[in-house]
């Protein structure tokens, strides 16, 4: 009986989180279009609803009703599985994020490690999509993204080690608790810079959007996709932005903890911080050109890798000497 009740509560929580996340992800596309439009001194979507507020829904309907084309020479099974393989890990990661002190789906003691592990699966979908499409542009895009995501996953993981050393736990809730006094971004600025750059690369955002660089590879790995399958890739990208921003909030900006003299509920603080970081993601997209593939790798291995190693060393030294 007890197990059944627990299961029901868990399912309700999952449903709530998935629902909210799907909605937020859909509106993230709207937000991105609006923000970029205003940076570029135009209006963006205006037609559907007040100031285009229903645009994501119209987009969803359009994508849903669109013809779903599977290329003749494609590997059908892999082609169909690939978008699912991209979307599912992105949503699974929400299961361990602490949205407030009381609201989370579950807590595991390998919390942040779980997120890293699951996010490493996202690359499969991309590689599968690129290979199964049987198109040269897709394959080039897939190879690029495989190399890019594998490399930057390393920097992403290593950049988190500094804050984790300070927190002394992998559990997301404990990491937040450890930042009661000072956010880790002040202790670990170097780690945050590396984390943010690696996060941009992991989510294939400008200036690291090489896998889907439309002006070079048409659309990279999802060139051959259409309809709902294409929407899956699209949603996955934004869901990944949300997750990486959430990780940044949790590890560097004190999670749901706010300033003590302003009485706001935890999840509001969380949403505010999340929004700020996502805004920077969008802002960068409107500002920066794109790196070249070899320059991206050089930046990673010759600049960020030594930096993040030095950060771990320094953190360890300080912790050993003074704490």
């Amino acid at each position: 009986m007890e197990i059944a009740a627990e299961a029901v509560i868990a399912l309700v929580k999952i449903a709530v989180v998935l629902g909210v996340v799907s909605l937020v992800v859909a509106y993230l596309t709207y937000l991105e279009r609006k923000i970029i439009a205003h940076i570029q001194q135009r209006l963006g979507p205006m037609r559907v609803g007040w100031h285009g507020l229903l645009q994501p829904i119209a987009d969803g309907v359009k994508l849903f009703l669109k013809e779903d084309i599977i290329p003749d020479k494609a590997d059908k099974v892999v082609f169909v599985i690939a978008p699912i393989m991209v979307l599912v890990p992105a949503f699974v990661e929400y299961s361990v994020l602490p949205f407030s002190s009381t609201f989370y789906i579950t807590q595991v003691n390998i919390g942040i490690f779980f997120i890293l592990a699951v996010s490493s699966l996202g690359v499969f979908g991309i590689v599968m999509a690129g290979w199964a499409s049987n198109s040269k542009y897709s394959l080039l895009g897939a190879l690029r993204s495989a190399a890019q995501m594998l490399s930057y996953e390393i920097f992403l993981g290593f950049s988190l080690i500094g804050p984790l050393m300070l927190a002394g736990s992998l559990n997301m809730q404990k990491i937040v608790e450890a930042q009661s006094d000072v956010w880790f971004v002040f202790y670990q600025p170097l780690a945050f810079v590396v984390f943010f750059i690696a996060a941009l690369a992991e989510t294939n955002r400008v200036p690291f959007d090489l896998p889907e660089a439309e002006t070079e590879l048409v659309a990279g790995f999802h060139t051959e996709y259409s309809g709902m399958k294409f929407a899956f890739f699209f949603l996955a990208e934004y869901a990944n932005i949300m997750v990486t921003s959430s990780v940044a909030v949790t590890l560097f900006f004190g999670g749901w903890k706010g300033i003590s003299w302003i009485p706001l509920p935890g999840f509001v603080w969380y949403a505010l911080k999340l929004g700020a970081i996502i805004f920077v993601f969008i802002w960068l997209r409107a500002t920066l050109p794109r790196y070249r593939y070899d320059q991206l790798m050089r930046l990673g291995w010759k600049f960020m890798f030594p930096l993040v190693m030095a950060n771990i060393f320094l953190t360890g030294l300080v912790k050993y000497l003074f704490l």
Partner: protein
Amino acid sequence: MELVFFYLFAAGIVGASLLMVTRANVIHAALSLVLAFLFMAGLFVLAGAEFLAGVQILIYAGGIMVLYLFSIMLMNVGVAVRLRQWHRQSALALAAALLLAAEVWVVLGRGGYPAAQAWSWRLGQTPGNVEALGQVLYTKFLFPFEVASVLLLAAMIGAIVLAKRQITR
């Protein structure tokens, strides 16, 4: 409950592995193997090895298998699929494998293993598996750990030397 999940995962692993061994297309085989690894990670969580489950997904599925896929894509799979897939000694090998299976069956059937012991921590609680594993890894097994790192370095250099297009002499 635990047993049900065990059977679920075990069935998944065995099914995916069988799929892997029999596929003609190497990419399909590699993807089946990834599926097997994911089920295996579930099994590890069941056995109280959460950290290992994470490592399994992060390193095995997310790292090694991507490396495989990457290499397979660099080669031309299209032609290889149309070639003969099996050795001529397959029947013999199958017979040997079945013989080995029978042997394992006999050995396992003897039983007589000591009774199970409980972990000193509970599942899903901190300090738990990660802390304990770290403690053991960096004290008792420090030397093997270092050796493993040297091994990885050697493998890395070896792989680069082997795969590099031209080695200037």
